[in-house]
């Protein structure tokens, strides 16, 4: 009877134990990658290749997403602002909301979907087909060559992609606005940027470095710990996207609060 209760309690605690194990393994993974990243020789060529993979190959997607956000923001806020007699504030609302929040978070989530899934699947299949083992046999540290380069590329490229998203959203916001009520792009920018300070631009843009680290770390970690063949690869791909997206949203909550405190 007592042993039955013990096993039921232990079974109930299993998910909790798996949760803490996951974080523990993630901690070891991060430490190993950090140590590998600062130890020469540096994988500059692979880093540049990964920057291209993360940056230029995501650019079109990010630009389209940013454009869509600009259109939606312009359409949605116009009526509300007209109701409050604040139509002239439309450029400022679009630009500030894109720069401060929408651009960074949309970029983070899209990169998490495109790049996170790609890294999780690629590293996962490398793991199950023994390519990672082959790399180690060749004397190459996979934590440096595969993980550190990808994580760093994500951290470096996210702010640049965010700028692209911001730019694209601001331009389409103006385009939609000017279709309804013609306005020059110069005037639109003047009205919008009048309300934008340094603190509205740099901290939110650079917080995406953290989003990039999250995408890179989670997807590389999930990919490199795959077990169980192709089914495991599928699981790693899904986990990479889901966990990275969730962590980006949670990190955003903390970072927004932090930015408000540090840059009032």
């Amino acid at each position, binding site marked *: 009877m007592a042993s039955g209760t013990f096993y039921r309690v232990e079974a109930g605690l299993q998910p909790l134990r798996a949760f803490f194990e996951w974080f523990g393994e993630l901690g070891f993974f991060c430490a190993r990658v950090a140590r590998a990243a600062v130890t020469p020789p540096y994988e500059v060529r692979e880093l540049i290749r990964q920057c291209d993979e993360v940056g230029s190959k995501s650019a079109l997607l990010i630009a389209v997403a940013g454009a869509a956000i600009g259109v939606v923001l312009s359409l949605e806020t116009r009526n509300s602002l007209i109701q409050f007699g604040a139509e002239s504030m439309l450029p400022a609302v679009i630009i500030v909301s894109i720069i401060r929040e929408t651009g960074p978070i949309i970029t983070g989530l899209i990169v998490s979907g495109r790049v996170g899934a790609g890294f999780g699947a690629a590293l996962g*299949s*490398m793991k199950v*087909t*023994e*390519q990672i*083992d*082959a*790399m*180690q*046999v*060749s*004397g*190459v*540290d996979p934590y440096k060559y595969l993980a550190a380069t990808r994580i760093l590329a994500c951290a470096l490229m996210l702010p640049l992609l965010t700028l692209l998203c911001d730019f694209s959203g601001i331009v389409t916001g103006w385009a939609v606005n000017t279709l309804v009520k013609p306005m020059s792009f110069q005037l639109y920018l003047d009205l919008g940027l009048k309300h934008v300070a340094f603190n509205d631009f740099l901290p939110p843009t650079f917080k995406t470095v953290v989003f990039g680290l999250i995408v890179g770390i989670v997807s590389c970690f999930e990919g490199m710990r795959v077990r169980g063949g192709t089914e495991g690869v599928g699981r790693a791909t899904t986990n990479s996207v889901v966990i990275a997206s969730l962590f980006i949203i949670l990190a955003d909550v903390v970072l927004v609060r932090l930015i408000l405190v540090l840059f009032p």
Partner: protein
Amino acid sequence: MEGTRDPAIVLEGLHKSFDGEAVLNGIDLKIDAGETVAVLGRSGTGKSVLLKLIIGLQKPDSGSIKIQGRDITSLPLKDLNAVRAKVGFLFQEAALYDSLTVEENVAFPLRRHRNGQTRERKDRVRELLALVGMEADSGKLPGQISGGMKKRVGLARALALDPDILLFDEPTAGLDPITAAEIEELILKLRKDHAITSVIVTHDLHGAAVLSDRLALMHEGNILIEGSLQELKHSTHPFVSQFFREGA
């Protein structure tokens, strides 16, 4: 050569478990320099694990692994990589890097371990690809070539650093008989030309007999019996008799 034979690989009391289940149970095996040993056994008996322990991809729970006199179980990564440079590994599915061409795959270990000029490296890659008959496909990606061709490229990559020891994990598994015979021929050629120490993990009794000097049969996480094919065939142990009867 015979007079100067020192052990190239010495395994002593190797134990390895996964999730509490013992896979290797105190393995002892000595392989002389220039010798080829085929490790046989049923699926799941830990043959591939044994190879991964020898190359340091996994750590044993206990026991020692000496490669050319150096115990690799406690070596730091830098020293372990120096030992690995002397050991080539042909993986079961060749484990070629998907994103690199055939040529780049073979050049990969050379770029890591040798600081030579690009020209020298290219010459070496060409030489290796010619050795395995793959020079015409050097620009192809692994996804564009057959399983047998992948094995050839994997072998060229394993030979890139002029290893003293070669480890083969099921070198002919999944290949048609003609391609398997071609791979066996290549391995025999290597034995003849380079006198490399080899460990071949295989299910294939015929291949093992053709390629090796000595056979070792694994059973229940240990080496049950070692010797020539004839010696093993005449064993009265029930498992050995059954293995050779079923495998014949």
